[in-house]
C-alpha cells in the first residue's frame, strides 16, 4: 500500500469542454475516493424565471441554459405550459419541433463522439467528426436562423415555417450527412485502436444502471430499456419511425456506438418528417394566465430532462424547476471511479457527455 495522493481533475482541464471539479484520492494509480463539485457555472436561471420574466418570455430564458440542447429546454418548458393551459398545438408545428429536436440530437451526439475520440488521443477522427457535424449546424442555421440559440419553439407552436427552398437544401445536406454518418458508424464500430482503448473501460452494468438511475445513451448502452421518447407522449415519435437502440456491455465503446446508431435513426426520422410534413397552421395564440402545476419529461440528447412549473393566475410563474440528465448521471460516475485507473478517468468522464451549464443552471 502506497501513500495516498490527491489529484485534482478540473475545474479547468484539457479534456473538459466545461468546468467541473473532481478531486481524486489515489493509491498507486488506483482511485480510492472521489469528490465532485458541479456548481461552477451557476447563473440563477430558475430564480430569474420565477421573479423577473413573464410566462411568455421564460421559453427564451431557459433556452439559454445550455447551447447544445437549446431546443430541448424550450421544448420542455413550452410543452409544460401548453399542457397547463390546455392549448392544442397544430400538427405541423409538432412535426417541425420534432425535426429541429432530432437535428439537435444529431449535432449533440456527434460532438460527444468527437470529444471522446479526442480524449482517447485520436485527433484525426475528432476532426473528421466535427467536419461532418458542421453539415447539421448549417442545416439548423438555415431552418431556425441561428447556429446555437434556435428560439424555434414558442408557446402555441413554432416561430418559423419550413419554406420549399429551405426544404430542398435540407434534403441535399441530409443526403450527404447520411453517407457520412454511415461512414462514421463504421469507423467507431470497427476501428482497431479505438476498440483496444475503449472496450471494457468504464463498464456500467445493467444492475448498476437500474440502481443508480442512469439516463440517456449510457443507460441504453448498459442494456437498460429507458427512453422518454417511448415512455412519455410529447411529440409524435412513433409515427416517424422511432426505434430504441439498446446494446449490451456498458463500456465507453458501446456508449459511442449507441450514439452513432441513434444518429442514423434520427436521420431516418428526419427523412420521414420531410416526406410527410402535414399542411396547416404553425401557431395558435395563447391566451389567459397559467394556473395549477404541471410536469413533463423530455428526452434531451443526454437523457431525461424534467420540467416542473407552477402558476397562480399571475403573469410571473411561482416556480420553474429543471432537472437535467447530467445531474442524474453524476452518482454512477462517482461509483465508477472508485477502483479505476487514473489514466481512464478523462475518457470515462467525456463518454458520459457531461453538460455542466445544464447541471448548474
Amino acid at each position, binding site marked *: 500500500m502506497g501513500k495516498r495522493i490527491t489529484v485534482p481533475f478540473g475545474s479547468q482541464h484539457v479534456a473538459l469542454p466545461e468546468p467541473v471539479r473532481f478531486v481524486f484520492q489515489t493509491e498507486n494509480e488506483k482511485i480510492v475516493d472521489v469528490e465532485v463539485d458541479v456548481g461552477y457555472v451557476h447563473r440563477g436561471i430558475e430564480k430569474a424565471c420565477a421573479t423577473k420574466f413573464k410566462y411568455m*418570455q421564460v421559453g427564451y430564458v431557459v433556452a439559454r441554459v445550455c447551447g447544445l440542447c437549446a431546443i430541448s429546454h424550450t421544448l420542455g418548458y413550452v410543452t409544460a405550459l401548453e399542457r397547463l393551459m390546455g392549448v392544442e398545438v397544430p400538427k405541423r408545428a409538432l412535426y417541425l419541433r420534432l425535426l429541429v429536436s432530432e437535428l439537435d440530437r444529431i449535432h449533440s451526439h456527434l460532438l460527444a463522439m468527437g470529444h471522446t475520440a479526442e480524449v482517447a488521443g485520436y485527433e484525426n*477522427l475528432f476532426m*473528421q467528426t466535427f467536419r461532418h457535424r458542421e453539415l447539421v449546424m448549417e442545416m439548423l442555421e438555415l431552418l431556425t*436562423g*441561428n447556429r446555437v440559440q434556435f*428560439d424555434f419553439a414558442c408557446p402555441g407552436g413554432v416561430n418559423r415555417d419550413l419554406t420549399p427552398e429551405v426544404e430542398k437544401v435540407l434534403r441535399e445536406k441530409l443526403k450527404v450527412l447520411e453517407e457520412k454518418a454511415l461512414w462514421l458508424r*463504421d469507423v467507431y464500430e470497427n476501428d*482497431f485502436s479505438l476498440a483496444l482503448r475503449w472496450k471494457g473501460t468504464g463498464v456500467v452494468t445493467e444492475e448498476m444502471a437500474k440502481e443508480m438511475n442512469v439516463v440517456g445513451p449510457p443507460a441504453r448502452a448498459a442494456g437498460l430499456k429507458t427512453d422518454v421518447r417511448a415512455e412519455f407522449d410529447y411529440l409524435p415519435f412513433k409515427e416517424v419511425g422511432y426505434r430504441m437502440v439498446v446494446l449490451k456491455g456498458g463500456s465507453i465503446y458501446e456508449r459511442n456506438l449507441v450514439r452513432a446508431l441513434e444518429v442514423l435513426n434520427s436521420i431516418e426520422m428526419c427523412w420521414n418528417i420531410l416526406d410527410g410534413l402535414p399542411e396547416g397552421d404553425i401557431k395558435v395564440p395563447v391566451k389567459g394566465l397559467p394556473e395549477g402545476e404541471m410536469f413533463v419529461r423530455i428526452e434531451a440528447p443526454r437523457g431525461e430532462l424534467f420540467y416542473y412549473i407552477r402558476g397562480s393566475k399571475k403573469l410571473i410563474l411561482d416556480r420553474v424547476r429543471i432537472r437535467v440528465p447530467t445531474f442524474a448521471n453524476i452518482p454512477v460516475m462517482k461509483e465508477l471511479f472508485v477502483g479505476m485507473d487514473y489514466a481512464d478517468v478523462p475518457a470515462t468522464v467525456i463518454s458520459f457527455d457531461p453538460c455542466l451549464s445544464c447541471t448548474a443552471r
Partner: protein
Amino acid sequence: MKEMLIETIKNLFSKPVTVKYPQEPSPPPPNYRGLIVYKEELCIFCTKCEMVCPPGAIRFTYQEDGSKKFHYNPYLCIYCGECVRACPKPGCLTQVEEIAPPESSVPDWDELEKRAEESKKAFLKAKAVAKKKPGS
C-alpha cells in the same frame, strides 16, 4: 484503421473545408436572425414590443408633451424576433440579416433604463392629474 488511413491520405490532397474568413467573405445564410430595424414614421407607439422583449432591449422614453421615443440596444438584444411578431403595424419593425458591428462607444443603457422608468412614472402621474381636474 484502414478506412481512416485512406481518408487521411485523401484529405492531404483535397481542398480545405473551412472558409478563409478574413480574406474571403463568410456571408450569413438567407433569413439569418440579425438586427431589428425600426421605422419611426410607421410606429403607432403602442409599446407592445417593449412589453414582450425578454431582455428589455427595447425601451420607450416619455417626453414632457406626452410623445414617446424608441430606444434599441443591439448588444442586449437576443435576436429572438418576438417584437417583430408582436408589432401590429407591418413594416414598422423588421429583422435584417446584418449583425451589430463591434462598437466601442455603447450608449449608457443603465442610465437610459432609469430615465425610461422615471419619465414613464412622471407621464402617468401627469395623466392622472389631468384626468382628475375636469371632474373636480
